[in-house]
Every structure is written in C-alpha cells, then in structure tokens.
C-alpha cells in the first residue's frame, strides 16, 4: 500500500520544532502509521541493509535468510561465486519459499506448488506448465521470465553483504563514507573473519531507540558501570565521533592512553551526585579484563553505526556485526554475529571467548541497553505531543567532535531520517 498519499495527515500528527533536530517527537517511536511508512520510505527506499557476512556462504548454493525491515530475504552464492539476494516470497501466490535460517541448496522450491527458482532468483520451472494430455496448463501468454523473484541490488565491503530495494541508492562506498570504509578495512580486511557464535536479543523498544543508543557515547559510561570500572570506556577517555556527508552513519571511538589510570579524580568528579561509580570494584578472576587487543593502534572501542540497521563493533577485543530487525513499532530483535579470525592463535581464540561476556544479551557492557530501551519505550508512550531533548555536546550545527559525551550524532541520524521520511517541505 502506498502510504505517501497519507503523508500530509501523518505529517500533521507530529511537530519537529527545531531545525537542528534537538527535539524529536515521541509519536514516531510508537505510532503504527509511522512504522508502516518507515517500511516503505526507509527499508524499501534508498538505503543499504546488511544481510550476512560472505564467510557464512562460502560455497555454491550456500544461503542464509535475513530481514530488511519486515521483509524476509534469501541471500545465496551462485556457481561463479556471485552473491544474489531476493525476496523470500513466491512469484505465484506469495508463499514464503525458504523456511530455514541457513543451508545449502542448488535451487529454491516453493513448498506449495513446487515452482522452482534458480540461485539468481529466476523462475526455472512450473509443474504442469503445459498441462497434462493436452488439457489445462498455463495460458499461452504465460512467460516464466516475467515471474522471477523480486531481486535486490547487492554490494559488499570487507565481506559484509549489503542489499537495497531501490535503484536510486547511491553506490555502497559513497553511501557509507570514508570513515566506515577505513574502519571496515581496519576491522575485517586485515585478517580472515569467521563466525564463532550468534546471539539474539529481543528488545521491547523501537528500532530507532537502538540507533540512538549506538550513537550515544554519553550513556556508555553512565549506564554501563562495568566498562568504567575496568577501563574500557570512561567519560574522561579520549575519543570522538565522525559522520558521513549525510550525518546518517557514525563512527564513534575511544582511545586508550597512558594517562587514563591517573584520571580517577576526574572520574570521581564526573559521577558526583550519583551512587554508581565505585573505584574499588575488583574482579575475582581478572582474566577477562586482561585480554590484549589484537590490533596495536590503541582503539579501545570502535562503533560504526550504518543507517538504518547495521553496526560493526569492536568493543575491547570483541568483534561483532549487529543487525536490527524491527518487529513492529514497540519491538526490535538485535541479531549479533560474533567474529573471530582464521589467523587467531589458540590463546587469541580463548581470549575472544572470555571477552564475549562483554557483549550480547548477557554482556557486561551491553545487556543494560535492552533494559534502558524497554524503560524508554514504556515511558515515552505516555508523552504524545511532546519531544525528547538532545542537547548534550551542543546544539545547532551537526558536526564531528573530538569528545565523547555528546548527542550530536543522534541529531545526525534524525536529520537523515527526517529527509527520507519526507517530513521536509
């Protein structure tokens, strides 16, 4: 259904009172109409969406299924090594074709009437197409080539496979921008990634709240006490945020430096008036906090947030791809692909098992995000007509910073969202 014609009514539902996006209307987090418009304007629109890492489908016929918004997608590899993606819905009567998460198949057969599609998504055969004994069959005007699966454009970087529904979407590298390119290269191209585990977390919050969360280093050291106490990210640490030309993608990072250990006075001051920071916390087994970084460039965290639903994250010595799968306005599944590298020594591999405790639904540094988003969703539902406040780090111009406690990159996200949704003009 084309929601565009109703846009005028939808626009009237909310107000964006500031041009710097320091105020965001709460309705867009819980109103079903905005959710449906997002599915059309953002997920079917000019955006690149993460589907899989190429190491998950190394051979001909390997496939995985994943979601772009509400739409289930098959992504697979053909005989010549190319990667193709198409909508997991039969061109005949709409049936879901592949009902598995991953596997290998030389073709995809719809279970209902056995229409068969090749690995490029083309309709290869239709049972009883010519009828039986001169009777029945498809009409003479039926051409199989007019009934292929809905194909998506596919591009990859660092093995990350992205797809888009739109012909308008600019090339992937331009879409991601220079910081994403250099960081993806830093994290994924220097070695050979392999999946060492998946984690899933069903969060009772709108998918955009998670986008705010990963663009918000302000909360990182306040909500996540663990990483402050163990020096992974602290409000006094060096770091900053850098965005792409549309301010939709954010690279935020913190940098380890020699003087961090001497800054406990600053740290105590940063937490003044709260009862959260306790400098005396000790681990019974400190192994988890002593895993050396694989890369010697000093980055303690690197969070690449790619509009609308993908994150490549290095938190301490963990490497993971996070992907958001919206499940209606009030719920989102966070799907995490945890990475190791073929080159890892036994010790490095065990180190990554230790530090996996930092991330995911039980992660010392991440589990509280699920809770924060649930509470946020619960609270903001009561605030129709009102707006959230994004002023930390400054208002006005949306620009890169060399400090961490900021919400400017969240405003960057909203700026692009506002444009794609057609709120302008």
């Amino acid at each position, binding site marked *: 259904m084309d929601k565009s014609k109703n846009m005028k009514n939808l626009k009237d539902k909310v107000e964006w009172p500031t041009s710097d996006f320091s105020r965001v209307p709460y309705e867009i987090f819980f109103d079903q109409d905005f959710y449906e418009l997002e599915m059309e304007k953002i997920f079917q629109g000019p955006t690149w969406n993460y589907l899989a890492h190429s190491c998950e489908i190394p051979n001909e016929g390997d496939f995985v299924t994943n979601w772009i918004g509400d739409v289930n997608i098959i992504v697979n590899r053909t005989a010549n090594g190319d990667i193709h993606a198409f909508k997991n819905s039969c061109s005949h009567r709409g049936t879901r074709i592949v009902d598995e998460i991953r596997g290998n198949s030389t073709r995809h057969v719809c279970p209902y009437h056995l229409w068969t599609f090749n690995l490029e998504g083309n309709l290869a055969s239709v049972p009883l197409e010519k009828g039986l004994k001169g009777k029945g069959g498809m009409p003479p005007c039926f051409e199989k080539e007019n009934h292929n699966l809905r194909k998506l454009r596919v591009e990859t970087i660092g093995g990350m496979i992205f797809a888009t529904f739109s012909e308008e979407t600019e090339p992937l590298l331009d879409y991601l921008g220079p910081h994403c390119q250099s960081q993806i290269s830093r994290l994924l191209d220097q070695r050979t990634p392999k999946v060492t585990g998946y984690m*899933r*977390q*069903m969060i009772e919050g709108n998918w955009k709240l998670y986008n705010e969360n990963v663009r918000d280093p302000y909360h990182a050291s306040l909500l996540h006490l663990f990483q402050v106490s163990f020096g992974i990210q602290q409000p006094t640490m060096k770091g900053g945020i850098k965005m792409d030309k549309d301010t939709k993608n954010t690279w935020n990072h913190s940098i380890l430096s020699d003087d961090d250990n001497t800054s406990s006075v600053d740290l105590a001051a940063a937490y003044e008036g709260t009862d959260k920071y*306790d400098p005396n*916390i000790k681990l019974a087994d400190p192994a988890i906090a002593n895993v050396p970084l694989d890369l010697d460039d000093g980055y303690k965290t690197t969070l690449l947030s790619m509009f609308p639903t993908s994150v490549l994250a290095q938190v301490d010595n963990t490497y993971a791809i996070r992907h958001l799968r919206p499940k209606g306005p009030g719920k989102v599944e966070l799907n995490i692909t945890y990475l190791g590298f073929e080159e890892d020594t036994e010790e490095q591999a065990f180190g990554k*098992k*230790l530090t996996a405790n930092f991330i995911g639904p039980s992660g010392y540094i991440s*589990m*509280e995000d699920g809770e924060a988003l649930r509470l946020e969703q619960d609270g903001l539902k009561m605030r129709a007509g009102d707006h959230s406040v994004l002023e930390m780090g400054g208002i006005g111009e949306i620009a890169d910073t060399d400090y961490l406690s900021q919400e400017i990159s969240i405003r960057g996200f909203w700026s692009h969202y506002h444009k794609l949704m057609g709120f302008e003009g």
Partner: protein
Amino acid sequence: MNKIELHLKIERFLFDYADCLNEKRYGDFPAFFKEDDCHYEVQSKENEDLGLTVPIMGCYSHGMIRDRVAQLVDNTLTYRRLNLRHFISNIRIDDGKPEINVNANFQVMQSDLEGVSKLYLVGRYEDKLILDQNELKLISKRAILDSFSVPNMLAVPV
C-alpha cells in the same frame, strides 16, 4: 549409595540450585560449583547445532562465576526486577564414575512486579557432577536455550 539414592540426591541438588536462583540468593550460587575445577555456560541451540563454541554467557573458572553474580549481589546492575521460577523435569542420570552426567529439561517463567507471568526461557541442562566428600558439586553446567532469542536481557544465571 544405590541408584535410587543417587537419583534422589541429584534431584534435590537441582531443586536447591533452582531455588537459589528463584529466591535471588545469588551470593550462594557459586557454592554449587567445585572450586578448583568448574565451567558454566549458557549457550543457544543455534550455536550448539552449528558447532559454534562462543556462548551467550561463559565462565571458565570459579572466580568468573563469582564475578557473574557480583553485580547482582552488589545491586549495581540496571536490570528488571522480575520474579523467576525454574521448572526442572525429565532428569536423566548416567553415573560414569567419577563424573556423573545429568541431563534435564528446564523452563523458566517470569513474573513482573504487578504479577503478570509469561514464559521467559526454555531449554535443557547438560551437567557434570562429582561427589566430593559425599557432597555433590558441579564441575560443568551448560544451559542450552531453545529460546535463544533472549527476551530483553539475561542478567541472572539459568
């Protein structure tokens, strides 16, 4: 100890373990594990079936188990105060001497502070126990989740 006595002892051990978590006595949790040799993990059925070894929660020493519950004991973690109740069934025991292999199913219900209950987790335990001076201790406990799309977060052990 004959087979029936051993079965009853292990069943009681599992129910005591469950009550420790149900009653939020997180400080007592590490004592179910053998101090000098133990392993605890929560793994997804997805990873288990794929042979992927990184778990959702993994403790490879008694100290790591103590650290896992420390934030709960100290009350410094931001998490939802739910009442959890473990139901353990289908207990099967293979006495391999010295290790006793125990398999069981579990279901954990969650009830919020306004008394609304729903299913939180379902899965199976894969345990290795030993008798240490006639007292059972876990040397390994693996909770493998069928419900691996974890609702909201998993702050407490299963």
